[in-house]
């Protein structure tokens, strides 16, 4: 009985070990493509169905909540009108400065727009699955954005037929960031805090206000500066700590993203 168990254990260890080795060598690629081919189409359909179902849901249980949300929205709209005017003025100023400096265009990003076909398969991770891979010139570290420059994650794995995006709220995610405060404080935005993300290593003596925008600092060679990460929601400052930390609210809900753009590496490096 004991001998038979030792043989079984040994056999399983051997098979697991060989599978890992064969994966790294690339001998298992046909088998991997077969299994992915079975799962990915279903995953894609399920993902589309669930994101659609989630976006159709109304998050209000009571009429009072709906009314309050309406008032908040009205307030936000008024503020956004003021912001729009300010933005237009800044745009004009910006354009004039760019002309002075001789810039024709700010960025030459080589972006690839892709539809998401799945998300994290491990409950403790936060990832997205994209139907593009190495043949599409995707490489590890490529920034993944939505909308007008909102960073949602970074490519963490590239296969011939799929790529995996590690979202900002994943526990292993780390991005060098800058606060749009007076001091332009720098820090590191990290995941692993549920739905929120946290900016750590902000120097203690610098002023961080709620509502301040946080963008990528450009200190990493693979990430361009100025991609929006979120807005400061709370600030934790302990007098005995060398650094303070801020909890950020990402501008998008990661669970409901349907389409993203991957900024391919060569264009990111040339833009810096």
């Amino acid at each position, binding site marked *: 009985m004991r001998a038979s*168990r030792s043989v*079984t*254990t040994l056999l*399983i260890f051997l*098979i*697991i070990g060989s*599978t*890992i080795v064969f*994966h*790294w060598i690339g001998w298992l690629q046909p088998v*991997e493509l077969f*299994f*992915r081919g*079975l*799962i*990915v189409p*279903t*995953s894609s359909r*399920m*993902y589309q169905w*669930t994101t659609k179902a989630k976006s159709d849901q109304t998050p209000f249980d009571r009429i009072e909540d709906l009314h309050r949300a309406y008032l908040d929205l009205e307030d936000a709209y008024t503020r956004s009108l003021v912001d729009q005017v300010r933005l237009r003025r800044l745009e004009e100023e910006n354009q004039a400065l760019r002309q002075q400096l001789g810039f024709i265009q700010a960025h030459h990003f080589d972006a690839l727009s892709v539809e998401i076909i*799945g*998300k*994290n*398969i*491990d*409950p*403790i*991770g936060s*990832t997205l*699955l994209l139907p593009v891979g190495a043949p599409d010139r995707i490489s590890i570290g490529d920034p993944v954005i939505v909308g007008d420059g909102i960073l949602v994650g970074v490519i*963490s*794995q590239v*296969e011939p037929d*799929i790529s*995996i995006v*590690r979202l900002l709220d*994943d*526990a*292993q995610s*780390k991005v060098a960031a800058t606060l749009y405060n007076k001091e332009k404080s720098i820090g590191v935005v990290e995941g*692993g*805090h*549920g*739905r929120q993300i946290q900016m750590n290593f902000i120097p203690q003596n610098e002023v961080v206000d709620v509502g301040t925008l946080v963008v990528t600092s450009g200190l990493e060679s693979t990430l361009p500066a100025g991609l929006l990460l979120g807005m400061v929601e709370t600030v934790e400052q302990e007098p005995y700590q060398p650094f303070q930390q801020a909890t950020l609210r990402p501008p998008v809900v990661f669970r409901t993203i349907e389409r993203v753009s991957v900024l391919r590496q060569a264009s990111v490096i040339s833009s810096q």
Partner: protein
Amino acid sequence: MRTVITGFIFFFAVIVAVLLHMAALYVLPYPFFHMHVLFLFLLLLLLIWESGLVVWVAFFSFFTIELMSASQFGVLLASGTLSMLFGVWLYRDIFTNRSIFAAIALTGSVLVCFRTLYTLLLWPWIAIIDGVFLPWRVLAWPFFLELCFTVVAMAVCYLFLALLFRRFILFAPKRFYD
């Protein structure tokens, strides 16, 4: 012919296991998506089949999941398959009274074994290669949620099995303990 049918059932079990696991992650809201549906399915399969073949279903299911995971290749595969092997041994030698308590204890033990192996394999990888040091509380809370929800789901599923099949009993007869 029998081998072909067994092979087909085996293949079907792998695909169903992976799809159920994915569907639960996609559909269930927080914190319910922490429930480990794949292990729940595999352990229910073990209770119904009572066969060591479940370890191979676990191997292929975790292999498929590994192909779509961001963690280093082999972490889920090794921890998942070895935990299921451990589960089969526990079911045969320790939790033998075939009651709801045995099913709950089996689920808890297998998940603890899985997450211990997972952490032991993942931690050195990400610390050495990625240079990321995960604080224990970042992993502990999701693991705790996973354990709670999976154990509760197992209890509910076992209740249904006990209602459907006479082989599944809720409580072992008293003479079992004598």
